[in-house]
């Protein structure tokens, strides 16, 4: 299987920005490099987890099953999986792009990707911080609204996709 790298131009632009900044503002740029390296290191376990989840999905769910559970006819069950997946998924969004793109190529519908992405706004481990900062009532209400918005966004994307077909 041949590897086709994506984002080489984007990476080149970022590298050029770094070189320019390094010349203009050396200490701050070195700090930025340090911060980026630390982010990368902290994400390594997550990358391993995502590769494992993707492999297990590929192994256990054949394209037909992905279409059944997450495709156009998946219905409420698909939405439920997308919401729960979004809530429990950890780390930055871009780390999940590969897995989502892989599942999309096998039949995952766009509406569920959008629902998954917005449901990620609910961060269970961070709920105590939200309660501490804004109060329990605020945390409950915003969580309910996020859930409604996640489902609505998915539905709207599906309607937009249909109208464009």
């Amino acid at each position, binding site marked *: 299987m041949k*590897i086709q790298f*994506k*984002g080489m131009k984007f990476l080149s632009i970022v590298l050029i920005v770094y070189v320019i900044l390094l010349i203009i503002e050396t200490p701050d740029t070195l*700090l*930025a490099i340090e911060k980026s390296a630390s982010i*990368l290191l902290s994400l390594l376990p997550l990358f391993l987890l995502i590769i494992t989840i993707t492999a297990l999905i590929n192994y256990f769910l054949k394209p037909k099953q992905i279409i059944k559970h997450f495709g156009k006819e998946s219905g409420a069950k698909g939405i439920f999986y997308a919401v729960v997946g979004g809530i429990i998924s950890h780390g930055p969004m871009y780390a999940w792009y590969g897995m989502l793109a892989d599942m999309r190529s096998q039949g995952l519908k766009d509406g569920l990707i959008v629902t998954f*992405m917005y449901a990620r706004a609910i961060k269970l481990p961070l709920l105590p911080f939200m309660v501490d900062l804004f109060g329990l009532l605020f945390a409950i209400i915003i969580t309910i609204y996020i859930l409604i918005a996640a489902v609505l*966004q998915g539905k709207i994307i599906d309607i937009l996709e249909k109208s464009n077909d």
Partner: protein
Amino acid sequence: MKEETLSLKKAFKKAFINFISITPMMLAVIGLVGIMQVYLSPEILATFFGYGSMTDTLVGTVAGAVSMGQGMISYVVAEGLMEQGISHYALSAFILAWVTLGVVQLPSEASIFGVRFTFYRNVLTLISTIVIAYVTVLTVGLLS
């Protein structure tokens, strides 16, 4: 049994190759996040707020969308902004936008999912974030 083991191996290989193929994109995003964290401090962010609830909600959304990092950091920054008297409208928009929007990851998202998908998703997310931030604070005000 042997066939299943080989399939699992193949599944891992496929997952690994797929993941490796998007590493340039992820490295670019991580590189930008590093720059943002250095050049966009909470002190700089605080200077943009304080112009009324609607404007603050919009500013909070934009500030959250351009800032990036662990979700936990958004709460630390929000706490600092709260101490400076920034409204709940702005803070809830900021925290929501931090997690759901991401200016620096837009090129990666567009490259992987397509420009149309990225445009629709981000516009919907932007609208949802502003509406949720505003309506949440209003609802909490009404209920309490």
